[in-house]
């Protein structure tokens, strides 16, 4: 394991702020893994810490295939963790909206440019991402439809689902998009939680990455076969919202729960009276893919995303 400086900059009160990367093995740039880009991505950082330890052990045993190099960058933005902010400490900008970046621009733009420069050229890129809404997911690999994405490669993670997503307006300023445009096969891995640690899904995320690296011939590691991934277009997920009322969100199902059409899957509870303000019904047979995890919700918030069950 070699520690290297990815980017370093001067700050007013924190001294020098340095982003570190850790390399395992030597030779061709085979796989690069990027962890937390936002200051609330505790799960993503935790997965990186587990992965770092594991890769160090594998390297020690000679299990990184010779001539292959892996780069791990656990956090681009640890100052935001330190001050309890989601976005960049000084100006609230989001590093994952600053790519490809500008080495002469503002801090997040400089970080994006430096990181992209260091991670370009790797054959495979893996990012532990978080969703723009708080909540819990079925673990999955997400790929943007840049025209360069490969779902058959994404299957090699052995995660339950591979989600393909149409480009949204802001996607062009993300790491994943710019990575793909520069020729790296890039994947975003969503492990379930963000602001809390989910030990089981963190371990599963580590296994998925190790499985992928093994199947790509970068490490030697005995791993379970994992899932045969179901490929799903993000558009196929059905949003269920709190259309009628706000209040406490009492959810009756979890990600992965199978639901029947017409089943009550959550109650919205009036905080003053304790009365049920609204029952939320499953509009279709299906599997819960995403659940909101806030204790209370606004009206018109997305509470669930459901995978429609296809009847033959």
């Amino acid at each position, binding site marked *: 394991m070699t520690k290297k400086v990815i980017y370093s900059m001067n700050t*007013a009160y924190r001294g020098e702020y340095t982003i570190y990367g850790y390399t395992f093995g030597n030779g061709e740039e085979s796989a690069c893994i990027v962890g937390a880009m936002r200051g609330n991505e505790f799960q993503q950082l935790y997965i990186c810490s587990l992965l770092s330890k594991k890769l160090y052990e594998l390297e020690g045993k000679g299990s990184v295939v010779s001539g292959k190099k892996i780069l791990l960058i656990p956090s681009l933005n640890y100052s935001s963790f330190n001050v309890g902010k989601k976005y960049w400490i000084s100006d609230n900008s989001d590093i994952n909206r600053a790519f490809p970046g500008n080495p002469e621009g*503002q801090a997040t733009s400089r970080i994006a440019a430096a990181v992209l420069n260091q991670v370009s050229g790797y054959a495979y890129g893996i990012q532990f991402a978080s969703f723009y809404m708080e909540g819990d997911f079925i673990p999955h690999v997400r790929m943007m439809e840049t025209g360069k994405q490969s779902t058959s490669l994404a299957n090699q993670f052995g995660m339950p689902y591979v989600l393909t997503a149409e480009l949204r*307006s802001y996607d062009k300023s993300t790491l994943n998009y710019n990575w793909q445009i520069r020729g790296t096969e890039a994947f975003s891995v969503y492990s379930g939680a963000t602001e809390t640690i989910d030990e089981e899904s963190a371990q599963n995320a580590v296994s998925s990455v190790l499985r992928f690296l093994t199947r790509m011939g970068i490490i030697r590691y005995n791993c379970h076969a994992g899932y045969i991934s179901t490929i799903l277009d993000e558009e196929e997920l059905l949003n269920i919202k709190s259309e009628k009322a*706000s*209040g406490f969100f009492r959810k009756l199902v979890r990600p992965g729960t199978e639901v029947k059409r017409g089943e009550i899957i959550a109650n919205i509870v009036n905080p003053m009276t304790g009365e049920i303000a609204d029952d939320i019904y499953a509009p279709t047979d299906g599997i819960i893919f995403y659940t909101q995890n806030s204790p209370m919700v*606004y*009206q*018109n918030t997305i509470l669930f995303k459901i995978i429609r069950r296809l009847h033959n």
Partner: protein
Amino acid sequence: MIETVVSADMLIEEVVKVKKNHLAPDFPSGKEKRLSIVSGLHGDEVAGQYICYELIRRIKMQFEKLKGIVDVYPFINPMGLEAQSRVIPVFDTDMNTLFPGSEEGTFGEYTAARVLQDIKGSDICIDIHSSSVYLKEIPQVRINEDVADILIPYAARMNMDVIWVHPSSTVMAGSLVHSLNEAGVKAMVVESGVALKIDYEYANRIVDGIFCLMSDMGIWDEPVEDSCISKIARDSDVAFVNAESSGIFIPAVSHSARIGKGDVIGQIVNVLTGSVEETIYSPRAGIVFSLREYPVIEEGSLVARIFGGTDD
């Protein structure tokens, strides 16, 4: 006539409401032109609050001159204004990245979709911003390159010092103005001053500019002269000046003043040692188009933009 464009119950008891004032002649012919004025997308920018007030007040004073429709939407992010938050409180999202939004989306996207739908059909829309807490801006219209030829004749009547043709985030994909232009509404951003403050001189000039435009459109039955000829700024006309050190910025120039090439813009000082870390010089002759307002600086912070000739 005051109308609610979109509303949603917040967590407990209160309701967030986006409203508009629909000003129209008492006996419309059905062929009136329609101008929409929007502000308060960013909750820390308050200049638009005064501008909307003053515009409505002046229209009501001479209501008989109103020959078209003026729809005023003063607060698109009302809870941001209440909570002094640039982004949507609770959701922590910049409202001006969510357009065109979605009826199926979560609160912010849903609100964006409804607001966009309501403004569609306007001939022209002006989205009023007042910078951020970091920079003070000269009064300007901002438009994106792809619609510059169409918009410049209208922007030129807005009584502003500069029309900046630049891919600013307020006119790029995800912004209200971008979605409106795609929907065939001529839409532009007015930017001036600094967040959290109202510069009444700038604000009154913007109101005068809106009357110029209304007069041109046949909405206001009185000739109105603009008092200022806008200069058009292309990207090569504007130099960005970023700090290469950290500390506290002490300006040596006034905002909107003339500056010569090599003149001192300001210094970055170390508050602990009492020493000067960096003296920042102007890379070209021109006017101080933007000047750092918030004094705490990190490496990369934008200190000034200079509008003038080229660097040599």
